[in-house]
């Protein structure tokens, strides 16, 4: 947080996450992104007359798991409500959501900045509730075009809405909150959190607190929408804070002043500006009432407790363990944990195989992760098992081959799927026994009396020429071994 600013930025987030269930929330249609328009629909999700919803319990269970992970209270009774509004992508004319009795409330997420720019902080979670997603309008209503099209595939996709307290104080904190939240949801296998495909969406509420003559003034709250990446969220909020401050300086309008309503602004990332959206949407009355077609949902204390026990190790605990048990620097732990649990599990296997956490971490960060990002796959698709990589690293550690030769072998293993031994053979790498190395060194020393003389005079660097010649004659020799041997033999001559 920047203490030099004349205001405090107050931010709360509403994050919508599509749940990774097999089927939709209220029908049996497949829950999948990217199918041809309107191919994943049925009378229920298309809102046809007479169709009725039936809750997919696994969507509720997944939501409870997420809420427990967010330290929320889980009421043993929750219910559904209808949120009524007209829109082309909402075929029923209402969205089935949760209003006054959400499935969870009063939770928190602890965030910490790996760069240490702000101290550890607890962000309150007001509630997390479940609702159905709407379809997608593939038209431009504003332009009044005749050929409006609607894709209902997304209709009825389970959506978890996570509403934070207005506890965030800067775009930087927002960035950390979002990436920690995303990581948590990925660890709990709630969602793939893919912002490009819309499975994670963020709306922000923001205003400023300003001290004026010893009194705290608040600017009107603005909701910012249409932010398609975490970076866009941060940019939009940074822009909005400045915009609100300038507007306040101009107009002096405060929250609660007569005529002040909540404004909704849409972020244009290309232009780097936000624009006010039509005021009609702000004043809408959703006429919530209990959904008569769905019975309330109940859960027992024991079931909630089972969810708590099944959470497993969450990212924060995992970072701590990597530092404590594997002596990793915090930066290393952070990088590994942020890659997701499967990569951490790969690390555990590798570190176990070679009995060294830091070296395992180095190889993973320098070689494995580089490959993953270049090829664009996850650790699940990495062709070399941790045990195989471990055996290769063990050879390097035993000085059977150099680190750079080791990298060549790994590259060969990745491309061919061979074991380390087979890969070395393919590359013509064979271990040179010490008698052969000694024989080679003697020959080189005899052929290079000048070098021997230099060494005897204390010019140790001269031995480098012999190491080079040795590698030319046999690429498999260990350079360090050649160096040490030549120095010793020259001394004896």
């Amino acid at each position, binding site marked *: 947080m920047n203490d030099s600013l004349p205001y405090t930025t107050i931010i709360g987030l509403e994050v919508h996450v599509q749940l990774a269930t097999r089927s939709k929330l209220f029908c049996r249609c497949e829950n999948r992104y990217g199918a041809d328009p309107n191919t994943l629909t049925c*009378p229920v999700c*298309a*809102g*046809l*007359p*007479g*169709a*009725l*919803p*039936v*809750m997919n319990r696994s969507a509720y269970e997944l939501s409870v798991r997420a809420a427990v992970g967010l330290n929320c209270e889980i009421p043993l009774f929750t219910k559904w409500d*209808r949120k*009524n509004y*007209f*829109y*082309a992508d909402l*075929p*029923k*004319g*209402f969205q089935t959501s949760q209003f006054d009795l959400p499935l969870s409330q009063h939770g928190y997420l602890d965030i910490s900045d790996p760069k240490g720019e702000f101290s550890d902080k607890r962000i309150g979670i007001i509630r997390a509730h479940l609702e159905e997603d709407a379809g997608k309008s593939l038209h431009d*209503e*504003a332009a*009044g075009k005749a050929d*409006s099209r*609607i894709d209902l595939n997304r209709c009825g996709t389970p959506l978890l809405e996570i509403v934070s307290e207005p506890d965030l104080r800067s775009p930087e904190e927002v960035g950390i909150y979002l990436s920690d939240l995303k990581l948590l949801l990925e660890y709990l296998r709630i969602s793939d959190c893919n912002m490009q495909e819309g499975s994670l969406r963020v709306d922000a509420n923001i205003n400023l607190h300003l001290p004026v003559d010893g009194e705290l003034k608040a600017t009107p709250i603005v909701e910012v929408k249409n932010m398609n990446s975490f970076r866009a969220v941060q940019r939009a909020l940074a822009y909005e804070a400045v915009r609100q401050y300038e507007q306040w300086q101009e107009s002096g309008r405060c929250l609660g002043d007569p005529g002040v309503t909540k404004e909704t602004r849409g972020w244009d990332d290309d232009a780097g500006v936000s624009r006010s959206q039509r005021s*009609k949407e702000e004043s809408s*009355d959703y*006429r*919530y*009432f209990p959904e*008569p*077609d*769905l*019975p309330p949902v109940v859960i027992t204390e024991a079931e909630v407790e089972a969810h708590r026990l099944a959470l497993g190790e969450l990212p924060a605990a995992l970072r701590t363990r990597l530092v404590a048990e594997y002596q990793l620097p915090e930066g290393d732990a952070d990088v590994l944990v942020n890659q997701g649990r499967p990569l951490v599990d790969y690390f555990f296997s590798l570190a176990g195989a070679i009995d060294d956490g830091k070296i395992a971490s180095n190889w993973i960060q320098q070689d494995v992760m580089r490959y993953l990002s270049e090829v664009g796959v996850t650790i699940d698709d990495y062709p070399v098992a941790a045990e195989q990589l471990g055996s290769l690293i063990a050879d390097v550690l035993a000085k059977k081959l150099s680190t750079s030769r080791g990298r060549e072998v790994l590259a060969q293993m990745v491309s061919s799927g061979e074991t380390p031994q087979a890969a070395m053979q393919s590359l013509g790498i064979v271990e040179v026994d010490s008698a052969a190395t000694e024989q080679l060194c003697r020959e080189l020393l005899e052929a290079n009396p000048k070098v021997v003389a230099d060494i005897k005079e204390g010019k140790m660097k001269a031995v480098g020429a012999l190491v080079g010649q040795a590698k030319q004659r046999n690429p498999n020799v260990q350079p360090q071994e050649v160096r040490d041997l030549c120095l010793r033999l020259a001394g004896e001559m």
Partner: protein
Amino acid sequence: MAIVDYTATELLERMDSRDLTSRDITAAYLAQIETHHGEVNALVRWDAEGAMRTAEAIDSRRELGEPVGLLAGVPVVVKDNLCTSRHVTSCASRMLANYCSPYDATVIERLKAADAVILGKGNMDEFAMGASTETSAFGPTHNPWKLGHIPGGSSGGSAAAVAASMAPVSLGSDTGGSIRQPSAHCGVVGLKPTYGRVSRYGLIAFGSSLDCIGPMGRTAEDVARVMSVLAGNDPKDATSIAGPVPRYEMSCREPLDGVRLGVIDEQFGEGLDDEVASKVEMAIREFEGLGATVTNISLPHIRYAIAAYYIIAPSEASSNLARFDGAHYGYRAEDIPLDEQDGPLVAMYRKTRREGFGEEVKRRIMLGTYSLSAGYYDAYYLRALKIRRLIAQDFADAYKNVDFLIGPVTPTPAFEIGEKMEDPLAMYLGDSYTVGANLAGLPALSLPCGHTAEGLPVAVQLQGPALSEEGLLQLACAFQQESDWHLMRPELTKAE
């Protein structure tokens, strides 16, 4: 006796004994429809060809000795708010005048599985909103007993079809009395089951927490037989009740011993027509004669039932009918005016809904939208829910002392067509005795018990606790064994 005068049970006996085929029977009912449709307008459409095909298929299966269903070869008329995958399902609305459902309602699937022959769709008040079948976009249905009078509603077409011998049995739906009131006005038996006993999947929703599908027929036994087909759990309806389903047509003939009937005090006061009162009182005495003990019972909150009902049902309707917006299916207005303020989409919604819905439907959407609006929700919707709980408690208290409740179905006999169209409040008050069972989710039955001097049918209402349909049908069956109101037929104009 003509084929169309038989009960469904009698028809089944004659098909089993090979005295009649479903083909004969179906042809006879279709002929009756063709002959009298112009007078009664009970059906909005029928499928003679499809019905005959089904009938023939069932006949040949019966001929081959294959097992057949509980209603094998029996013609049925179903209300036009039940989705059928063949032909149009319109809810008697311009909005859905050409709408074809891609699927069958669960009750339609069940009828088909029981080998019933679905003749066609019964006329109704638009979206089941009305008590006279006058709000239908296809014109009013006429009461077969007196053509200038209403048949009741909203299932007026289904009731009139049975009364006019166009079908031995039919299906209706009941949100505030829409099975029982037309059954009373047309002199047939109508059963509104316990909420959730019959799946609502495929019933075009009006008031989702109140809607029930139920059977109508001349005799309690026929109604019981259809009920055995309709009832049961449906995984597609989350509010459907689990548990075993009795064979109602078997148990309904069993004698009832020591039944305690409670007469609802509040339903014999102001507003009840003298002739209706005296017929209902006679029916109560007949039940006494059958061995029932009768005591008076008070339902202290029932006087608020109409007020609560006309908040809750329209509130749910305002949401249920939001989907009819012209965007996805059904009627869409043309020549959308340019709306500078709201844009073309909203302008399209507006014109479509203004033109596609009738006046009564729009009135109820307005009522419901208002009740749910910010600032009014607590005063209207929430209070209505509280009254609903109090009424349910009144019923629960009553059933601690009596087995069933008895009273009138309607305050008056069927009124004249057009008489109350300009006075919605008077029309709404006609539901006073029936909405209680919907608010409490309990079963109730309308049983013919006499005719007025003018020749209009009068009925008595039997109500019971949850899942007491068996008892209600037993009572009705016992009554019909001692009376012959159900044997009377209206005089329709003879065919030329």
